[in-house]
């Protein structure tokens, strides 16, 4: 009947399938061994984090132009879910890098721009959580959402200019089973991502209406 619970159940099954793909379906990678299996969740998470950031950008532009709160809620929900995937990327990445590169971190364009993106998302989240819920804060956050996206491009360019490119084409280097697993997990996580955004959107919408009704109630009480 309701699409949301069905989709939730399906994505739960999908997550199990994703683990089967990452742990059993794909062959053991020759040079990196077991730790390479982090990739099947790490890489799609990174893409989804970028997607969340992009959606936040679009929502922020939409809000600045139309001043409709649905755009603002869309931007906020995408930023929050993007932040969750960003945390996953930033924590699983070093865990992979330590055995594979021998170092937790490298000053490499993709790493730095991802870290900066999560930092900007964090600022966005702190702003929304503690800056209040007025119209002005929404616009403040929208400006941050709009400025953040081109900023990541500049950070990427800066670090590339500074360190040179890293010729690490993971996706094109892997064999077909690995690619199948990667894209399947991506599809599953995309569904999870969309569901989470929808859920966050509904939570914020409810909270928005609760605030409005409280105001109305206090006005009625005053009468």
């Amino acid at each position, binding site marked *: 009947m309701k699409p949301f619970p069905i989709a939730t159940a399906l994505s739960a099954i999908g997550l199990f399938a994703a683990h089967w793909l990452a742990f059993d379906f794909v062959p053991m990678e020759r040079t990196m*061994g*077991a*730790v390479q299996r982090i990739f099947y969740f790490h890489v799609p998470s990174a893409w989804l984090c970028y997607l969340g950031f992009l959606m936040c950008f679009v929502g922020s532009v939409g809000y600045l132009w139309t001043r409709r709160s649905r755009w603002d809620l869309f931007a906020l929900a995408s930023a929050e879910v993007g932040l969750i995937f960003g945390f*996953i990327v930033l924590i699983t990445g070093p865990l992979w890098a330590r*055995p594979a590169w021998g170092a937790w971190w490298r000053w490499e364009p993709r790493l730095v721009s991802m870290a900066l993106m999560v930092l900007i998302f964090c600022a966005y989240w702190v702003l929304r959580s503690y800056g209040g819920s007025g119209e002005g804060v929404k616009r403040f956050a929208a400006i941050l959402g709009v400025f953040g996206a081109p900023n990541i491009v500049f950070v990427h360019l800066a670090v590339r200019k500074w360190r040179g490119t890293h010729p690490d084409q993971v996706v094109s280097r892997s064999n077909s089973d690995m690619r199948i697993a990667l894209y399947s997990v991506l599809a599953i996580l995309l569904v999870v991502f969309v569901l*989470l955004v929808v859920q966050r959107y509904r939570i914020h919408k409810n909270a928005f209406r609760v605030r409005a009704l409280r105001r109305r109630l206090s006005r009625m009480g005053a009468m």
Partner: protein
Amino acid sequence: MRSSSMRRGLAPLMLAGAALMAPLAVGAQEAEAPAAAAPATADAPPPAAQSAFQVSEGLEAMRYRHLWIAYGVIWLFVFGFVWRNWKLERATSRELDALEARIGDLEGGAGVKVDG
């Protein structure tokens, strides 16, 4: 009201902090173990160029340990977030229903008064 919203905000932050500590704890362990089998130096060549080097037992163990920690973090984040959202959504929709009912009562009562 304020303190509860603060707590709600701090919970994921603490979660994130704990998750960030995990690799550090692993790192400390490795530092204690003498000569942890790290492949070459900090500026090791990209993975493709390393296929020839000998895989020691320590490295193999580290690979599995890191794999499990990574998936642990993923599970923690995804399911923790889902659980928190589920609770939040239930709480807000319940509050919304209660408020709507109260406003309905008040408006209904006012209407009756006017009619009577």
